[in-house]
């Protein structure tokens, strides 16, 4: 045994009763994932087949418009396309032809389904198959759903990665696949840590470009870096790969536990493990303790949003000294979230799904010191005197592994410190 985190003395949250809510949700749909995925996969293009709403969502979520010509676009369905389905397939072919002629740098094209394309049953799998034949092998065409009737916010990334798994070549090689789109710099840090442990056959999903090799098979084990990859998890199991369940690598403790799970699988001895992790662990601990000063003893309330809520609550509770009041997450998957629930000290209400007005009532009643929520809710809650951290920043900012542990604590402490600094009551 190289390392195991200490379970909470009063027990964890894995068996705690879950408040299941079904009401109005206040959360993005899976299309949002395109904003970070297109930056990660430099030769991929994401073509949403949807409505003006979908185009507008992408633009609004991108916020500060990342101008230049982005590698995503929306094929907006018009009245004519809704009339006959055959036409829509032809139209799509024409749009793709034009797009690929204009952008010869594109090597992977994702056709992304939306609510309208799903409601009219526009078969994008068929379209992807057909277009792969027309444009292959230089361009690979895949499809996934980012629709709001099927996916919640970060589940778009999950659907995208899951769509890639069935077409991966088969291998018998013993290897580790790390799953989840991480910024390149963070991915490199992780590879360096694993390399230090002597684990060299490491591949990442997604790969940075289509040409990078990745295959999968019965001797593959995989670790997830993001808690929202349930479909990808299932797709990899179908390819007979084996999951290494672990807490997610947020914070010093999460990172160490995540690495230890992999180290145990690959038979890394305790000395090597200590040699590789001791220094960055100490650094991370120091950074977190400094960045979390403003958070100690404060309460935190999570609205369900990024699907990262449970592991983040574990980090804030155990490493930053916060008291979670409610931890809401869009979906809870025991296989993925169990290890973090085990470590999250008992106490908070765990909730799944949402009924936004009721949940806001609970938040107002609890008056938490910090509320983690979506962008639509942040300013209204601030105006009511509640301090907020908007969740989308957690997926846009590098937060994983040791060197980002301090930054992660900083994301939460900044709004708290800011409220303390501002001397004037806001008049609005």
């Amino acid at each position, binding site marked *: 045994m190289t390392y195991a985190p200490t379970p909470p003395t009063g027990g964890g949250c894995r068996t705690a009763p879950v408040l299941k809510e079904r009401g109005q949700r206040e959360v993005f*749909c899976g299309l949002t994932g395109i904003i970070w995925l297109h930056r990660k996969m430099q030769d991929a293009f994401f073509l949403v087949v949807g409505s003006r709403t979908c185009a507008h969502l992408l633009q609004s979520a991108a916020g500060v418009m990342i101008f*230049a010509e982005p590698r995503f676009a*929306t*094929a907006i369905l018009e*009245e004519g396309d809704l009339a006959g389905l055959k036409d829509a397939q032809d139209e799509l072919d024409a749009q793709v032809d034009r797009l690929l002629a204009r952008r010869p740098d594109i090597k992977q094209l994702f056709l992304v389904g939306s609510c309208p394309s799903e409601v009219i049953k526009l078969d994008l799998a068929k379209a992807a198959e057909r277009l792969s034949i027309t444009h292959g092998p230089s361009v690979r065409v895949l499809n996934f759903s980012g629709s709001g*009737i099927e996916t*919640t916010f970060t589940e778009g990334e999950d659907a995208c990665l899951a769509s890639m798994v069935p077409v991966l070549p088969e291998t018998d090689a013993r290897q580790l696949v790390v799953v989840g789109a991480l910024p390149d710099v963070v991915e490199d840090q992780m590879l360096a840590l694993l390399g230090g442990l002597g684990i060299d056959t490491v591949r990442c999903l997604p790969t940075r470009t289509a040409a990078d090799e990745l295959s999968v098979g019965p001797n593959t084990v995989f670790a997830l870096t993001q808690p929202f990859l349930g479909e990808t998890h299932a797709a990899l199991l179908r390819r007979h790969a084996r999951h290494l369940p672990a807490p997610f690598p947020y914070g010093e403790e999460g990172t160490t536990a995540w690495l230890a799970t992999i180290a145990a699988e690959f038979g890394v001895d305790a000395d090597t493990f200590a040699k590789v992790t001791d220094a960055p662990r100490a650094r991370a601990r120091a950074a977190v303790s400094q960045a979390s000063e403003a958070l100690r003893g404060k309460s935190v309330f999570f609205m369900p949003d990024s699907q990262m809520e449970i592991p983040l609550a574990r980090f804030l509770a155990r490493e930053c000294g916060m008291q979670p009041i409610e931890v809401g997450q869009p979906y809870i998957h025991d296989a993925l979230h169990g290890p973090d629930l085990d470590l999250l000290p008992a106490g908070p209400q765990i909730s799944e799904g949402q009924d936004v007005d009721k949940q806001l009532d609970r938040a107002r009643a609890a008056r938490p010191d910090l509320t983690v929520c979506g962008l639509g809710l942040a300013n209204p809650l601030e105006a009511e005197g509640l301090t907020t951290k908007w969740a989308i920043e957690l997926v846009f900012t590098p937060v994983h592994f040791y060197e980002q542990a301090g930054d992660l604590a900083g994301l939460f402490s900044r709004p708290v410190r800011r409220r303390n600094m501002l001397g004037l009551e806001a008049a609005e």
Partner: protein
Amino acid sequence: MKLSVWTYEGPPHVGAMRVATGMKGLHYVLHAPQGDTYADLLFTMIERRNHRPPVSYTTFQARDLGADTAHLFKDACQDAVDRFKPQAIIVGASCTAELIQDDPAGLAETMGFDIPVIPLELPSYQRKENFGCDETFFQIVRHLAKPMERTARVTCNLIGPTGLGFRHRDDIEELTGLLSDMGIDVNVCAPMGATPADIARMGAAHFNVLMYPETAESAARWMERELDQPYTKIVPIGAGATRDFIAEVAAITGKSALIDESRLRQPWYAASVDSTYLTGKRVFLFGDGTHVKAAARIARDEMGFEVCGMGCFNREMARDIRKTAKDYGVEALITDDYLEVEEAIERLQPEMILGTQMERHIGKRLGIPCAVISAPVHVQDFPARYSPQMGFEGANVIFDTWVHPLVMGLEEHLLHMFREDFEFHDDAGASHHGGQAKPRVVEGDQSPTPAASPLEFSDQKNADDNVIWLDDAERELKKIPFFVRGKARRNTENFATERGLAEISVDTLYEAKAHFAR
């Protein structure tokens, strides 16, 4: 199917949200999937609103389809009425709900609420955001406003301002003051700030001030017909238009058009010698029809610019803009495809763009200064300070805004005199912009085929050009400050082409300069 990267307008239900969010005491029940709740952030983040928009979304999911989405809708209506106690509700569908045909209007009507239920039919696959505003406001007015006795004093309604509107907040204040100077009170301002009860008393006003035809023209026409209220046709953006607007209001009301203009500084600022350098600057205009039309007049008649192109993204205003463009001797560009706009700007090489946030980005890419004159809005379009576009203060604000991106008058001369000096090198830009004004390389995307940096662009030869620049001439061209270099290149090439010259020498360059001297 139409490929779209960035859009100038959202879907029509976002227009309905802008109306609902501008108002008070009204609630919008929207049949829509969860992802459509993104629209809340437009109001809470871009406009920094301190309340959630008054919208309940049904957020149906795939598993509800076929089963019972209608029930979800009715529950959402009931919850909204119970929780928010609105004076009236508007009900409708987003693009997805339109396809599942639950008929929100019919469902809501059967529920027996004792408040008005106003159904909206917004065709998501044909129309866009501005239509959504206009139609929603029209339906609200049509359902609630009634003919009634006029107020004793001369009053008007201000109509058109909405949530998320370009400077609507400050335009209301400016016009209210201007009208008050004329002895006219505002009866109701709507949608912004009005409750359904206020809408019901709009009939008491003597006339309507149509601030933004984009969002309230249908309502204005209806009230003219049904409530016998004339409405103003002139949008008071710019000094000249403001004076004309005052005359128009005077003609409607019989009030005097003589009002104190001492706050209006723009005409003198434009006439003062430091502004001489603005003469004949070639500007390209793009935005919503109303703001573009107003900006064209300001640009030519009040700033002394040359309008080299104009267009709008809202087809509803296409006729108007085509006609205006004709008066200005240019071709109108009616499109909602920003790539077409970019192409037009590249071709015309204006010295300044007066556009939207989209054109600001295009300008950044091409190294052309840009001032923003119209929606779609950005967080920057909601400044903390008072910053109207309408009325006298609006004219002052516009003067400052348009001059700001340009290199200042005296400075332009200095750049000519000291162009070899290190401080005034080509990339320096206006000194009051700090490092920011340096022509930028494409930000964000690291696409393998990066777009031309601004300098590459202005120095680039047109691919289809047969004229060759000799090395000497090319070097001489580089000595010309960057902000006029594009024009110099274009003029010289035109000059050479007209004369059938195959090559451009230093002499050709200076002959062309003499030819085009003004």
